């Protein structure tokens, strides 16, 4: 097992190296365009349209991005900085990207966790009922609802919910910055966490996101339950004369949940990147909103840093899920 984990970690490092290289190459597809755009944004204030000043602005941007050096040297510096955990500083606010990511991780993680909780609260009871009353009217209705939520993309649902509440309830969630929403470290502002504000902001996106995620979990749990309920040991439990509740909750559900938990883990990993949509629509000051704004401001250090951090999270969450799987289900062995 230890050997397996070690091997996986080494492979993950290789994957992260590939991701870093790809980001590096991606940012150098068309440097001229990038530099022109960037120079256009920075030099609007001070320069007229004289050729000299735009050339000067371009040269400045090239120097900022480190594009004036030979490409292999750029690559070397880039890799060295990443290895040292230095993601540079953002163009717009001149903040250290690494610490900014830390600041904004709070709201993103909270949203992700709430989403998974909502999904589980909805999906687990529905999945169980749907499985033990297979092919009944209840089952058909629940399955239809889950297919419907599986089919509606999260951004369409979010827009409908937001517009609906604005139109008929005359209510929209408040907007705020991460400093108010989720001071990091907690209580650093001295005001503490405003829980009411926090809930108001997280309520809608958590439910909208949770419905989509819940539909996936529910379908998976249902098929797992159906499989487990046909196992011999469940029949034995019936034969012993146990109550239905005990059989389902203690005997069947425990085993059906193991594969479901891995799906939840994987979803948790993708949620970091998937929340870009929810955060943008509901204005949640997390990583997703930040990076979308950074892209429209052509703030490349931020984009580069966030992509790397998300990729790292993703591969290591996957590893954790695999380890947790082996821990929960001792029958599984990794060779």
């Amino acid at each position, binding site marked *: 097992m230890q050997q397996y984990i070690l091997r996986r970690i080494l492979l993950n490092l290789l994957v992260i190296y590939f991701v870093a290289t790809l980001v590096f190459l991606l940012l150098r597809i068309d440097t001229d365009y990038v530099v022109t755009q960037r120079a256009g944004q920075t030099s609007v204030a001070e320069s007229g349209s004289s050729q000299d000043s735009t050339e000067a602005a371009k040269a400045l941007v090239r120097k900022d991005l480190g594009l004036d050096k030979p490409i292999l040297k750029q690559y070397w510096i880039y890799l060295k900085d990443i290895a040292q955990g230095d993601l540079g500083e953002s163009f717009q606010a001149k903040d250290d990207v690494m610490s900014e990511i830390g600041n904004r991780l709070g709201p993103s993680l909270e949203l992700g966790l709430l989403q998974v909780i909502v999904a589980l609260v909805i999906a687990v009871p529905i999945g169980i009922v749907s499985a033990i009353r297979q092919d009944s009217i209840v089952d058909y209705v629940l399955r239809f609802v889950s297919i419907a939520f599986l089919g509606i993309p999260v951004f369409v649902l979010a827009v409908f919910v937001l517009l609906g509440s604005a139109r008929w309830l005359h209510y929209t969630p408040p907007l705020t910055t991460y400093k108010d929403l989720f001071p990091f470290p907690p209580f650093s502002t001295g005001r503490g966490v405003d829980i009411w504000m926090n809930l108001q902001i997280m309520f809608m996106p958590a439910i909208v996101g949770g419905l989509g995620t819940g539909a996936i979990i529910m379908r998976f749990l249902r098929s797992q339950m159906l499989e487990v309920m046909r196992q011999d040991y469940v029949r034995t439990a019936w034969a012993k004369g146990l109550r239905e509740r005990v059989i389902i909750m203690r005997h069947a559900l425990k085993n059906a949940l193991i594969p479901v938990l891995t799906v939840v883990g994987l979803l948790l990993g993708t949620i970091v990147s998937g929340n870009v949509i929810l955060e943008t629509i509901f204005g949640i000051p997390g990583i997703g909103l930040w990076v979308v704004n950074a892209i429209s401001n052509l703030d490349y250090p931020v984009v580069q840093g966030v*992509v790397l951090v998300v*990729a790292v999270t993703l591969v290591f969450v996957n590893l954790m899920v695999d380890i947790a799987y082996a821990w929960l289900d001792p029958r599984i062995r990794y060779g």
Partner: protein
Amino acid sequence: MQAEDQPAQPAVIAAPREWTLPKRPSVAANIWKFTRRKPLGAFGMLIVITMLAMTLGTPKASFGAPDLPSRPLGFELGKPWLARYDAEAIFRNVDTGRIARYNKPSTDHWLGTDKGGRDTYSRMVFAARRSLFIGLWALMFATVIGTAVGVVSAYFRGWFDTIIQRIMDSFQAFPALLILILLVSLRPPSLTILAFGLGFVGVTSVQRIVRGVVLSTREQPFVEAARVIGATDLRTMVFHILPNIMAPIIVVFSIGLGAVILAEAALAFIAPQRVPQDPSWGIMLQQTRAYLPPEAEGYHTLAAGGAIVLAVLGFNLAGDALRDVLDPRLRVG
């Protein structure tokens, strides 16, 4: 003696009972059978056909390299037959002479008009062309590259396979949506680039499925036979393995289309300023969210959101049914 007992052989052999070939079921009967067996799949097919019909328009005689969205197939397509007006036509109210902003649905404008006084229904129909052709080009790219990578990787196995799969893993670790937003912001806005980007993201999942299928196909006797008669690796892959994995490829293609259309709409919704403006479901949806027009009555939102939901649903249902018919054991996604 015995021969005499038997009745004499008749001089002319009696004509055998008339042979009737089993009647080949008509196309209509086949469609009916499919509909009976897979009602949801048939519903999906109906949506897909409707969407195809939305893209049809009178072709114009201007040939050249394919370009999205104006020349999706190398020649220009005119106004879709199903659209009533041109996408950019601006209407004015007859009585006031002002631009008809946010009109309610009427016989002239089935789904009302938008902020700029343009017909929402016509724009919705126009947008189908963009979605579908971006999807088709992206999937074409993803399928061709993904199949090639998957077949080669599974055929040679060993360390070669390991390296390819690790590279694919790193693609998978990419936050796809972020990369796509980044990609469209790194270059002058172009839908062709966007289509390639979407296809690139799809390569990993296509190759994973194809690789799985090839891993089992390459152990079958006909591949061994091909090797025995001295077929080269290339020949084995192209003429023996490839024709035998067509069914999964078709299924992956049809299910992938739904995913790509969804991704394109999401991208246009999140970063509209980076994606060229022309009728697009994602951008239509984004506009209503951004301004919350009081008089729009939500028709604009409903048209755009409904179109996205139906299109994705249609391709998924059709793909699922196709999977059940062509290759029931295939696990997709």
